[in-house]
């Protein structure tokens, strides 16, 4: 094997003049050569000739180059190299590495080779581009060695086409960059998602918590502290601690029982309870936790949330009240219908008479309900009622009735019912045998509404018929009359007077309503008996 450093030796010539400095890597001891004039190749069998070895080198699948150490001219370029480059042997032997390496200049190439020349390194390995005869390039890795044993001194290069390797490297780099970018995107998305979650929790007054069954510890986050109006030092240590300290006294037992069951059996949490905030206000909290089980099947951890649902609870309670009220009104109405049926029957002289009267009164009730529900069951205007009932007697070119006077009274549902029935009786009577039974007849209604000394609303309604048939007082007291009298006197605490001058029937009604009956529909406020208890 060649030693690492060149050995400088001097040879003296036979005539004794001068010395010829010779640089060689080693002093070879020639061995007996089997072939005439050929010295055997070191490290090889005697049977392997130099020529054979040369051929082996030529056929190597590595690109092998030998070029002159001084002139850089190629001394040998093997078959693979020639094939890859596309040059013929002749062409190549007239070229230097610089012709193949577009990235180098003579100067930079010389600089590159310097460490080899100086003996600093034994071998150079570097990557560069090779240019083919047709101008295309390919990536190569060059392993370069300087051999100075013999003359001429040469550079020996084994060159590998690393196109594929380079391609894979670049692909790997791209993949890495891609992954990097995706990680960044994911991180950004995660951050954004977390921000959204925090904002949503905030907006919905929700706090989250996590309980670890294995270490028996709970984590309650900041949002829960805010929600429950707890200071940082009051943060519950675990679920049971939470259950014992947080809920309103009345609900505490239930919450403790639920927490114990959850911890014991790993069941999900789903309870509503009240808390008392520091300002004394009571809030409803919905407490939900979902349990996630471990690989062994037992509960591992629970994630959950607390949300304020005070509004919803109030709403539910109010709805229940509304349902009750609705139920109550329907029952009342049914009872009233029963009463009308019974009374109408008692005063009917025939079945047809009953049907007509009964249905007609029911219709009046229905119309009144319609008018009330059009105004959302708030108060209803008396004028509207009069219009509704007398509207059927209106013709295109002729008004059979007129409403005079100022103002209007806003009636509660009960008051509306009474007035409806009264007006219906008056109108029906007028249509059967009074002013509304003939073309020429007219009804003049005068409505005066004002406040009296006590602030209550006084309503005075005058019903005056004219230009109808000649009037005679009734011979018997039908239900209509009884209805008018009892409705005004009993229901409305008022007075009614009926007169029968021959020009036409007159009815004077005088009632006092509550202080809130004065005014128009726009000002009306609901006056119901609904009241929500202070603490549900």
């Amino acid at each position: 094997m060649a030693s690492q450093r060149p050995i400088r030796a001097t040879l003296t010539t036979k005539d004794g003049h001068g010395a010829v400095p010779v640089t060689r890597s080693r002093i070879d001891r020639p061995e007996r050569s089997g072939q005439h004039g050929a010295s055997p190749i070191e490290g090889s069998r005697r049977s392997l000739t130099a020529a054979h070895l040369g051929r082996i080198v030529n056929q190597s699948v590595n690109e092998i180059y030998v070029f002159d150490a001084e002139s850089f001219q190629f001394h040998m370029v093997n078959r693979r190299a020639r094939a890859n480059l596309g040059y013929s042997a002749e062409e190549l032997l007239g070229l230097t590495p610089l012709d193949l390496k577009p990235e180098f200049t003579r100067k930079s190439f010389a600089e590159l080779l310097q460490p080899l020349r100086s003996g600093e390194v034994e071998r150079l390995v570097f990557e560069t581009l090779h240019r083919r005869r047709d101008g295309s390039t390919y990536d190569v890795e060059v392993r370069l060695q300087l051999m100075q044993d013999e003359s001429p001194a040469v550079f020996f290069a084994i060159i590998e086409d690393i196109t594929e390797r380079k391609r894979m490297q670049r692909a790997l780099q791209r993949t890495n960059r891609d992954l990097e970018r995706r990680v960044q995107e994911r991180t950004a998305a995660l951050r954004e998602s977390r921000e959204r979650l925090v904002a949503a929790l905030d907006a919905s007054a929700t706090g989250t918590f996590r309980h670890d069954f294995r270490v028996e510890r709970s984590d309650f986050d900041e949002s829960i502290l805010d929600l429950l109006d707890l200071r940082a030092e009051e943060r519950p240590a675990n679920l049971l601690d939470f259950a014992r300290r947080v809920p309103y006294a009345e609900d505490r037992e239930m919450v403790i029982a639920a927490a114990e069951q959850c911890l014991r059996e790993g069941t999900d949490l789903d309870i509503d309870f009240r808390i008392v905030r520091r300002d004394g206000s009571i809030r409803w909290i919905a407490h939900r936790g979902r349990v996630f089980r471990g690989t062994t099947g037992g509960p591992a951890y629970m994630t959950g949330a607390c949300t304020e649902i005070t509004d919803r609870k109030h709403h539910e309670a109010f709805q229940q009240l509304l349902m009750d009220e609705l139920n109550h009104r329907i029952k009342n109405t049914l009872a009233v219908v029963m009463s009308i049926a019974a009374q109408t029957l008692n005063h009917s002289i025939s079945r047809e008479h009953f049907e007509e009267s009964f249905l007609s009164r029911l219709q009046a009730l229905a119309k009144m309900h319609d008018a009330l529900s059009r105004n959302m069951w708030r108060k209803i205007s008396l004028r509207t009622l009069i219009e509704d009932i007398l509207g059927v007697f209106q013709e295109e070119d002729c008004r059979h009735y007129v409403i005079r006077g100022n103002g209007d009274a806003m009636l509660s549902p009960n008051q509306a019912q009474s007035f409806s029935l009264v007006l219906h009786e008056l109108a029906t009577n007028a249509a059967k045998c009074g002013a509304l039974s003939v073309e020429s007849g007219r009804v003049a209604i005068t409505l005066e509404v004002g406040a009296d000394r006590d602030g209550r609303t006084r309503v005075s309604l005058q019903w005056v018929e004219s230009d109808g048939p000649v009037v005679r007082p009734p011979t018997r007291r039908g239900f209509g009359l009884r209805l008018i009298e009892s409705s005004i006197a009993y229901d409305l605490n008022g007075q009614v007077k009926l007169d029968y001058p021959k020009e036409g029937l007159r009815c004077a009604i005088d009632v006092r309503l509550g202080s809130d009956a004065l005014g128009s529909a726009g000002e009306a406020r609901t006056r119901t008996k609904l009241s929500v208890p202070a603490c549900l």
Partner: protein
Amino acid sequence: MSVITTLIEGAPGAHSGLEGREIVTSETDKVLSGLHALVAEDNSLMAMLISDMLEEIGISVVRTANSAEGAKEAMSEGGFDIATLDVNLEGHGIYGVASMLHARSIPFVFVTGYRELPFCPAELSNAPRLDKPFTLRQLAAALVKAINFAKLHGPAGRGNSTNPIIEA
């Protein structure tokens, strides 16, 4: 209800006490017949209906009141031994009237369209209730219950003191 029977039989208007008595059993008849009633009801049609039904049972209606104040006035004047109280009179003043009646062992029935009576005092929470609309039979049964309730839970029933103690 006799209105229905007369409709079927085609005899409008007249209703003799006979039909009323057929609906009421002889037992209830003994207990209820001849009583005098106060009807506290602010709707004239309902007052008419209840009055007519009471008369059919054999109870005469001596007073009607359309407010809690009116009912209290009627109480101070006396003259009746059973009452029907509309729970929905203005405000919740009717419970005061009920308590007073209860203290005097005068039986009464709450007439209501509501499921619950949230403002009803505790000692009256088991007092008989009549849900609108009701039949004659239901009215008679409720009146009998009212008499029993007054006997059992009223001061006379408890036997000892004459003071009307409101139980806690």
